[in-house]
C-alpha cells in the first residue's frame, strides 16, 4: 500500500535525522547554486534594463554612422563616427528642441605621479552639457565650461579623494591635460556608470582634447512638445541621406538590452556550468549515502520483506524517502539561491565589476528548473540503491550475509563500459564535432559526465593498492592507529572510491583547468620566443576591459617610438573589419617593413615587406580554407562599403598572435572609417644599442603616454601569466561549492563507517586504545580517502586538460605544459580536506561508550 510505504519512509527519515540533514544539505547546495545563477541573471537583467531606460529616456531620436556589414570581432563592430557639422544642418528642422552631439573616447584620470589611477572598470571620457539628453545627471557642483574645467563620476571622485575645486590631470589620445573638477556626475540611481571612471568635458573641449577631428559618435535629438516624431524622423532622414541612419528610443533600448543580454547570457552560462557540476557532485553523495544506509538497514528491510512487503514496496519506500528529501532540499535551495546571488554579486563587485545591487527576481522558470534539478538529481541517485534494496530476500532478516550478496553490484563491467563510451564521446565531440556547437556540447559534455561516472566505479579496483601506498607513510608515522586507518580504507574499496569520487570530480576540473592554463602560458611563451623578434611590447595600460570607444592607444605612441634613434623598427597592430569575399574577418594592419623585422611567422611565400596598399597576407591553412593561394586576387569589402581587389602577396606558416589576416597600414589609412587605434605594438632596438640606454628612452615615451605600458617580452609574459592565474583562481572559487559537498560526503560516509564499526571500536577501546588514538585513526582514514580522490582527480583532470588543450586551435594552444606546483597544492589541499571531513566522525568515534559499543551486535 502506498500509505504504509510512505508512512515507513516518513518514519525512516525522522529516525535517521543526521543522515537526512546531510543529504538535504547536498541537495540544497546544488539547487541553491542553480537558483542563484538564474536569480542573479534575471535580477541583473532587470537592473540593467532600468538603467538603460534611465540613460536614454530623453533621447527621442539618434543619428549615427552605419557599417556596411556586421563585423567578425566580439560584440560586433562599432558604428563609424559622423561629422559634427551635421548638427547644424539638422538643428533647423522643425520639432527639434535639443540636439546634442555625443562622443566618448579614451581618457584616463591620472594620479599625482602622473600614472593612471587603478580601476577595474573601463575608463573613458565624454562630453557633458547643461541640457544633456543623456541620463547622466549632476551629483554636485556645476557643468564644466571651457578647456580648464571637468567633472568626474562621483564614485571615482570619492574613491580618489578628489574634492570640488581640485586640479585633476587626465590623458587622452592627444596628450595630457589638467582641469579643475567643478562637479560630479552619476546615473539617477548610482554614483557611477556600471563601474566606469568617467571624465566629462564641455563639447568643444571634448572635441579638442579627444582628438575628434570634427567627428562625433552620434547626435541625440530631443523633440519639442507637440512635435510628431514620425514627421521629424522623416525630415532628418531626408536631410542626412543614406550614409547615416536615424533610430528611435525603442530601437536604442532594444539594442542596448540585446548587448547587455548577450553579456549576462555568457555570465549566466558560466555560472550554470558550475551549478550543474555542483548538482552532479551532490548526486554522487546522495547515491553513496543511500547505498551505504541500505546495507546498514539490510535487516530492517529484510524483516519488512519477511512480514509480507513486496520487493516493489521496499523500492517504493526508498523512493518516497528520497522524494521527501529531494523536495525539502529543493525548497530550501531555491530560497538559499537568493543569498547565493547576493554573494556572487558581492564577490564580483569586490574585484570591481560594478554590478548594480540586484533586486530579487524569482521567475517561475527558475523555480521549475530548480525543482527538476533538485528532485531529479535525488531521484536519479536512488534508482540503483532502491533496486538493490528490492532484491533483498526475506531470509536476510535472519542471515544478513545472504542479503549482502543480493545487493552486490556489477560495477566493474558497467564502469568500464561507461569510461570507454565517455572517452569516445568526449574525443568525437571535441575533435569531430558532428552537429556543430550543439553536437560538441552534447558529446563532449555527456562524454565527460559518463567518464566521471565510469572512473568513479572503476577506481574501486585500484583503491586498495593505491590507498595502501598513500597510507604507507601514515602507517609508518602513526603506528597502530595509522595502520588501522590504512586497513580500514582498503577493506571497502568500493565505498572508498565512491566517497572519494565527489572530490575526484572537483579536483579533476581544477587540474584540467591547470593543464589548460599552463599550456596557454607555454604557447604564449613559445610564440613570443619563436615568432617575435622584437624587444618591447606596447599594450594599453590600466583600466580593465576597455569601455565604449576606450580600446587601444593612439598611433602617436608608435610614431614616437619609431622616431627614437635607439629604436630600429616599430609597428602597431591595428584591427580593421573587412569582409573577404563575403566572409567577415578581423584583419590586422601593420607597418610591412617593420613587421618583417619584428615578427617571424614562418614565411611560406613572400614576406611582410612585400605588402603594398593592394596586398593581403594570410596564414597557410586559413588560405586553404578560404580557397585562396599565393598570387590570387580577392575582393575585400570594408565598413565604408568600399570594395577593393587585394592580391595575396604573403603566405605565412604560424597561426600566431590571434589573427590569420594582415594588411599594410597604408591600406588602413585609405579605407578605415574609424579613428585609428592600436591594440598593441612591437618595437626593437637598433643594433649596438645598449639595452639599458634603450630602456631609458622607451620609458620616456611611456611617461609621455600614460595610457600605454611598454614592457620587455619577459615582463609582458609575466603579466599574461598573472592574468591566467587569476582566471584559474576564479575557477577554483566557483568549484568551491562542489568541493565543500565532496568533503561533507566523505564526512558522512566515514561517520556511517564508524557507526558500522561500533563493535570494533569498542573492542579496540577495551583492549587499550585511548580516545586520542581512535581520533587519530579516523582522521587519517579520512585523509587517505581524500588524497586518493585527489590523486585520481589529478590523473583524470590531466587527461582532460590534455584533450581540451589539443582540441583548441593551434593559434591558441600549440604546446602542452603541466604545472607540478598546482598538483602539489591540490594534494596538500586534499590532506586538509580530509582533516576537515574527519572532524565529525572522529568526535563520534572517540565519544563512544566502550561498554555500549562492545555490547552492540
Amino acid at each position, binding site marked *: 500500500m502506498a500509505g504504509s510505504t510512505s508512512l515507513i519512509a516518513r518514519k525512516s527519515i525522522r529516525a535517521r535525522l543526521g543522515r537526512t540533514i546531510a543529504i538535504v544539505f547536498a541537495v540544497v547546495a546544488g539547487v541553491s547554486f542553480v537558483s542563484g545563477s538564474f536569480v542573479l541573471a534575471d535580477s541583473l537583467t532587470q537592473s540593467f534594463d532600468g538603467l538603460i531606460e534611465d540613460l536614454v529616456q530623453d533621447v527621442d531620436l539618434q543619428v549615427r554612422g552605419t557599417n556596411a556589414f556586421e563585423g567578425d570581432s566580439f560584440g560586433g563592430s562599432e558604428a563609424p563616427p559622423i561629422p559634427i557639422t551635421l548638427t547644424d544642418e539638422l538643428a533647423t528642422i522643425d520639432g527639434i528642441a535639443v540636439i546634442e552631439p555625443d562622443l566618448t573616447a579614451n581618457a584616463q584620470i591620472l594620479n599625482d605621479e602622473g600614472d593612471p589611477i587603478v580601476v577595474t572598470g573601463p575608463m573613458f571620457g565624454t562630453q557633458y552639457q547643461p541640457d544633456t539628453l543623456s541620463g547622466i545627471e549632476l551629483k554636485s557642483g556645476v557643468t564644466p565650461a571651457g578647456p580648464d574645467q571637468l567633472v568626474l563620476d562621483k564614485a571615482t571622485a570619492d574613491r580618489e579623494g578628489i574634492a570640488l575645486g581640485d586640479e585633476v590631470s587626465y590623458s587622452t589620445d592627444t596628450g595630457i591635460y589638467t582641469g579643475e573638477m567643478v562637479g560630479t556626475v552619476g546615473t539617477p540611481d548610482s554614483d557611477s556608470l556600471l563601474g566606469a571612471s568617467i571624465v566629462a568635458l564641455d563639447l568643444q573641449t571634448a572635441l579638442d582634447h579627444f582628438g575628434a577631428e570634427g567627428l562625433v559618435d552620434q547626435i541625440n535629438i530631443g523633440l519639442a512638445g507637440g512635435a510628431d516624431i514620425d514627421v521629424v524622423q522623416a525630415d532628418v532622414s531626408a536631410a542626412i541621406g543614406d550614409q547615416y541612419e536615424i533610430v528611435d528610443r525603442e530601437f536604442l533600448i532594444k539594442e542596448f538590452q540585446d548587448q547587455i543580454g548577450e553579456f549576462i547570457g555568457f555570465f549566466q552560462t558560466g555560472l550554470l556550468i558550475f551549478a550543474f557540476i555542483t548538482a552532479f557532485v551532490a548526486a554522487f553523495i546522495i547515491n553513496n549515502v543511500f547505498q551505504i544506509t541500505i546495507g546498514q538497514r539490510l535487516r530492517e528491510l529484510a524483516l519488512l520483506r519477511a512480514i509480507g512487503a513486496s520487493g516493489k514496496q521496499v523500492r517504493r519506500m526508498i523512493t518516497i524517502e528520497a522524494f521527501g528529501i529531494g523536495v525539502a532540499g529543493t525548497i530550501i535551495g531555491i530560497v538559499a539561491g537568493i543569498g547565493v546571488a547576493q554573494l556572487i554579486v558581492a564577490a564580483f563587485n569586490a574585484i570591481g565589476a560594478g554590478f548594480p545591487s540586484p533586486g530579487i527576481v524569482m521567475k517561475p522558470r527558475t523555480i521549475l528548473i530548480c525543482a527538476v534539478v533538485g528532485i531529479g538529481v535525488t531521484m536519479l541517485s536512488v534508482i540503483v540503491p532502491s533496486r538493490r534494496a528490492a532484491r533483498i530476500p526475506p531470509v536476510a532478516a535472519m542471515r544478513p550475509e545472504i542479503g549482502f550478496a543480493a545487493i552486490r553490484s556489477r560495477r566493474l563491467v558497467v564502469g568500464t563500459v561507461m569510461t570507454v563510451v565517455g572517452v569516445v564521446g568526449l574525443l568525437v565531440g571535441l575533435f569531430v564535432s558532428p552537429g556543430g556547437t550543439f553536437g560538441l556540447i552534447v558529446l563532449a559534455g555527456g562524454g565527460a559526465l559518463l567518464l566521471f561516472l565510469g572512473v568513479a566505479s572503476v577506481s574501486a579496483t585500484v583503491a586498495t593498492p593505491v590507498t595502501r601506498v598513500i597510507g604507507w607513510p601514515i602507517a609508518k608515522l602513526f603506528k597502530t592507529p595509522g595502520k588501522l586507518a590504512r586497513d580500514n580504507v582498503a*577493506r571497502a574499496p568500493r565505498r572508498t572510491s565512491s566517497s572519494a569520487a565527489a572530490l575526484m570530480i572537483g579536483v579533476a576540473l581544477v587540474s584540467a583547468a591547470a593543464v589548460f592554463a599552463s599550456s596557454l602560458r607555454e604557447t604564449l611563451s613559445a610564440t613570443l620566443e619563436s615568432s617575435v623578434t622584437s624587444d618591447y611590447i606596447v599594450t594599453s595600460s590600466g583600466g580593465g576591459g576597455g569601455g565604449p570607444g576606450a580600446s587601444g592607444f593612439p598611433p602617436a605612441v608608435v610614431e614616437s617610438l619609431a622616431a627614437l634613434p635607439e629604436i630600429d623598427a616599430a609597428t602597431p597592430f591595428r584591427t580593421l573589419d573587412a569582409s573577404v569575399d563575403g566572409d567577415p574577418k578581423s584583419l590586422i594592419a601593420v607597418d610591412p617593413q617593420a613587421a618583417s623585422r619584428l615578427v617571424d611567422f614562418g614565411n611560406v611565400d613572400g614576406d611582410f615587406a612585400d605588402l603594398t596598399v593592394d596586398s593581403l597576407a594570410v596564414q597557410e591553412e586559413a588560405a586553404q580554407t578560404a580557397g585562396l593561394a599565393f598570387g590570387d586576387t580577392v575582393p575585400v569589402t570594408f565598413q565604408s562599403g568600399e570594395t577593393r581587389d587585394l592580391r595575396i602577396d604573403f603566405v605565412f606558416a604560424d597561426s600566431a598572435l590571434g589573427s590569420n589576416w594582415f594588411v599594410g597600414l597604408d591600406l588602413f589609412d585609405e579605407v578605415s572609417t574609424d579613428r585609428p587605434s592600436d591594440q598593441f605594438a612591437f618595437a626593437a632596438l637598433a643594433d649596438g644599442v645598449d639595452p639599458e640606454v634603450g630602456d631609458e628612452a622607451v620609458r620616456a615615451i611611456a611617461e609621455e603616454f600614460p595610457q600605454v605600458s611598454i614592457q620587455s617580452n619577459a615582463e609582458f609574459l609575466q603579466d599574461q601569466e598573472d592574468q591566467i592565474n587569476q582566471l584559474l583562481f576564479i575557477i577554483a572559487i566557483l568549484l568551491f561549492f562542489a568541493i565543500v559537498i565532496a568533503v561533507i560526503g566523505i564526512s558522512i560516509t566515514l561517520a556511517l563507517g564508524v557507526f558500522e564499526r561500533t563493535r570494533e571500536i569498542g573492542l579496540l577501546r*577495551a583492549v*587499550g*586504545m*585511548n580516545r586520542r588514538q581512535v581520533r587519530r585513526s579516523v582522521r587519517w582514514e579520512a585523509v587517505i580517502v581524500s588524497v586518493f580522490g585527489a590523486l585520481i582527480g589529478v590523473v583524470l583532470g590531466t587527461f582532460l586538460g590534455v584533450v581540451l588543450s589539443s582540441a583548441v586551435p593551434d593559434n591558441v594552444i600549440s604546446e602542452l605544459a603541466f604545472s607540478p606546483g598546482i598538483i602539489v597544492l591540490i594534494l596538500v589541499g586534499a590532506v586538509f580536506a580530509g582533516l576537515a571531513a574527519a572532524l565529525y566522525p572522529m568526535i563520534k568515534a572517540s565519544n563512544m561508550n566502550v561498554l555500549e559499543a562492545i555490547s552492540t551486535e
Partner: protein
Amino acid sequence: MNTEFAPPTPPADASASVAGPSTTAAAGAVDATKVYGIGDAEVRALDGVTVSFETGKFTAIMGPSGSGKSTLLHCLAGLDALTSGATFVGDTYLASLDDKALTELRRTRVGFVFQAYNLIPTLTAEENILLPMMLGGDEGDAEWIDTVITTVGLKDRLHHRPSELSGGQQQRVAVARALASRPQIIFADEPTGNLDSTTGAEILDFMRRAVKEFGQTIVMVTHDPVAASYADRVIFVADGQIDGELLDPTAEQILERMIQIGN
C-alpha cells in the same frame, strides 16, 4: 567466608578482612552497587557485592540471566562505573582513574576475552595478539609471546586474518592476545558461548593451563556449568548479590547449585 578479603590499601576496616595466607588479590570489589534507572524503574544490578579474586587462580562467576554477573565483570574491568562502592585491580582503585588512566589500565594490566567479535578484522592473527602492546608502543616480551603462540597452537596461522580462521581459532587468538601482555588479570565474558562443545573444551583447557603453568589470574563469566567446572572456584551471583561459592567443583555440583538458585 572466603568471599571477604583484604583490598590493597584498605579503605575502611582492614582487620575485618581476611585473605588467604599464600595469596594476594589480583582484583576485587568492595560493597559494589550499581543501580540503573530511577524511581519505580530502578533496577539494582549489583547490590553491595564484596568479592576478591586471588592471584594465580581461575575463578568462574555463575548466575542466571539478569543476575548481575556481567555487570560485575564490566565494573571489575573498568568498562562500567559503579553507583557506589569500589572495584580495584591490583593496588589501584578504578574510581580514582580518569578515562585515559582507565584505558592505560586496560591495555597494560587487564586482558579481555569476549564471547564473539574478539578480533579486528583488518589485522592478522599475530597483529591482533600484539595489538595492546602495539597501541602502547612497546615491543612486549618476544620470548613470552612466542611461548603463548606455541601453546595455543597458532604458529602456522599467524598471518591469517580472522575471516580465514575458524571460530575456535579466533577464540584462541583472543586468549593469546589477553595473555600476551602478561596482565594482572584476564576477564573472560562467556568465552565459549559461541563455540561447539569440543572447541569450547579446548579453549577452557587452554585457559586452565595458563593459570596452572603460567600463574595467570583469570575471571570468567559463564552460565554453562561444564565451562565453570574448569575453574578453581565458582562464585554464584543472584539478584545482584553473591550467593555462595564452590571450590574445585564438578559440573554436577554446579548444576545442582544453579537449580537451587533458580528456585
